[in-house]
């Protein structure tokens, strides 16, 4: 390969993605709580203040609606703000601004004003955090027309998807699975590149059964697929990467091949995206179906404190169990 690459964790890829987009485009700026001097509570913005100065890496007052609402005004004025909300569990004060305004500004003004903004937030469970630090509420945002929703699962994708989100003309909610912020490293090119929004990635090809997942659930799903492979069950693992707009073509194509599906997500079952994926399969590939579709999800309970978190989160054994059950029907 002619280009230089670096071996980065997922959170380092966030930082690298921000840095390379800020170098490319002077209109890109970062704002949020502790993003400047402190470099972000997860170090996702480390070094950016020194590199780009305080007009582009802005420590704000502690106010989520204020951060997102002012970013909307900046975006409408022509900037490409990337507000960071410290944890996705603290996005709700900004929810009104995201759904009532960011999502609707293009429609409301017939395109005169747009909102090319990326709201970044660490999301998901598994890090032994206090209350409100572990939820997965992607479905709140996928349900809102006008927004795009992205969840990366690898360092390479993180940089490319973040770049694509920043360059996108519409608002993107970019949810970063913090459980795997530092779980593994991957070669990431130093130069800017994009991974197109709305395209799923087949992480493992297989013939017998499709597993659809995203974010931090991708790794335990792949482990489960490896494990059942020893017994001759050949799983295809599809990482959706973008949850809105969802790559329904990839879902349907994989299902038509295998006729069986398991959907894995951390979020609660009821109203979760597994239902949307299942309905899409029903609409577009019912006659290929050979077994009930199995949903492996968080439970319909408030996210538990961490003494019980491991029961709540799907992990490889639960996923493997569901795969065997669906395969055996």
């Amino acid at each position: 390969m002619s280009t230089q690459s670096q071996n980065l964790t997922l959170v380092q890829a966030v930082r690298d993605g921000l840095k390379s987009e800020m170098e490319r485009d002077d209109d890109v700026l970062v704002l949020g709580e502790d993003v400047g001097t402190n470099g972000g509570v997860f170090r996702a913005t480390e070094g950016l203040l020194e590199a780009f100065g305080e007009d582009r890496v802005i420590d704000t007052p502690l106010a989520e609606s204020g951060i997102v609402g002012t970013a909307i005004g900046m975006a409408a004025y022509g900037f490409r703000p990337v507000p960071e909300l410290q944890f996705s569990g603290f996005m709700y004060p900004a929810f009104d601004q995201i759904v009532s305004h960011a999502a609707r500004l293009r429609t409301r003004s017939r395109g005169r004003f747009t909102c090319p903004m990326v709201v970044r937030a660490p999301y998901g469970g598994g890090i032994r955090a206090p209350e409100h630090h572990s939820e997965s509420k992607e479905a709140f945002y996928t349900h809102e027309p006008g927004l795009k929703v992205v969840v990366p699962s690898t360092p390479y994708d993180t940089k490319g998807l973040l770049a694509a989100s920043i360059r996108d003309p519409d608002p993107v909610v970019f949810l970063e699975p913090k459980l795997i912020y530092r779980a593994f490293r991957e070669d990431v090119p130093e130069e800017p590149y994009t991974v197109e929004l709305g395209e799923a990635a087949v992480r493992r090809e297989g013939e017998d059964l499709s597993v659809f997942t995203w974010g931090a659930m991708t790794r335990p799903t792949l482990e489960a697929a490896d494990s059942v492979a020893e017994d001759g069950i050949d799983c295809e693992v599809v990482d959706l990467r973008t949850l809105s707009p969802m790559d329904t073509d990839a879902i349907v194509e994989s299902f038509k091949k295998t006729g069986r599906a398991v959907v894995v997500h951390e979020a609660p079952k009821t109203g979760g995206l597994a239902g949307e994926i299942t309905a899409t399969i029903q609409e577009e590939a019912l006659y290929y179906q050979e077994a009930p579709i199995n949903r492996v999800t968080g439970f319909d309970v408030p996210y538990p404190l961490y003494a019980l978190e491991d029961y709540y989160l799907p992990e490889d054994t639960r996923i493997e169990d569901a795969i065997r059950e669906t395969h055996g029907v």
Partner: protein
Amino acid sequence: MSARRDPRDRVQVLDEDGRVREGATVPDIDDESLVEMYREMRLARHFDARAVSLQRQGRMGTYPPLSGQEAAQVGSAMALSDGDWLFPSYREHAAAHVRGVGLERTLRYWMGDERGNALDDVNVFPVAVPIATQVLHATGAAWAADLRGDDAAVLCYFGDGATSEGDFHEGLNFAGVFDVPAVFFCNNNQWAISVPRERQSASATLAQKAHAYGFEGVLVDGMDPLAVYQVTSEALSKAKDPDPVADDAPGRATRPTLVEAIQYRFGAHTTADDPSVYRDDDEVERWKRKDPIPRLEAYLREQGLLDDESVDAIEAEVETEVKAAIDAAERTERPVPADMFDHAYAERTRRLDEQATALERLRERYGDEELLE
């Protein structure tokens, strides 16, 4: 600028009879603009009556009237320069018209046609219905203008009820911290639907809340267009060309101002509201004695800028303009269904294409008449 104002002292230029108050300074406005100010206020009053009537006749949807609030809107919007920005809530039809938004477009918006909000050629943000949310957009845009080095300020409208919202606090707090060129203009019309001003805040004035954010708050008679013009002009020039921080400054922010314009809405909150449930006629009559239109008219007659003939001519012009706008809005063809699919994103997603196509198939099969029955 002169010594800072106490946010409990109400700025007034004209008394209730349109005479210049003792010791008051008339703002520097040329004669033509003064007559224009009067014309805009007359236009707004007539438009408002016709809009309410259209709603009553079933020719328009729910509409928020502005009658009584013309001076606050016209006086402040006329203080803006070409490069400045206006962030309305949902009642500022008169301010928007001053900035070049045609009445026809305002009517189309309230007739349910989103194209009425497509303001390609003016620095006016679209209507914001959720209370106080636009305060943050205004702060962000003012901040952006400052970062760009543009010679522009932002004027943001909201009501007395909005000052109770979190976004009001966050917007003014950010504006102070980042010292952005914004004027926050509170149309205190005494009632947030049925809840009186006293129930919104224990503060003696809303203007004094500015001090907590580190900048100046100004109280003005919002039914005196000259006073409104004066304080808004001063606030806008301070936003763009701030004074150094004075010893008596409420804080370290030099650019933003909170203006509280005391006024009254003569009519209902919207056409869906019945104000007789929560306020008595005596109160309305008391406030009607402060009506901004006869006040400005008396002043302009006194100055020799208006007489019976010119007032009649203005009334005739205003009626013609409103009638033409209503005709044009009602003649406009309904938007086509594709319109709602085309603006959700820069490009239609696959799902949106499928849904738009499915709807077109239904229209072809059944026709709009049967489909919308």
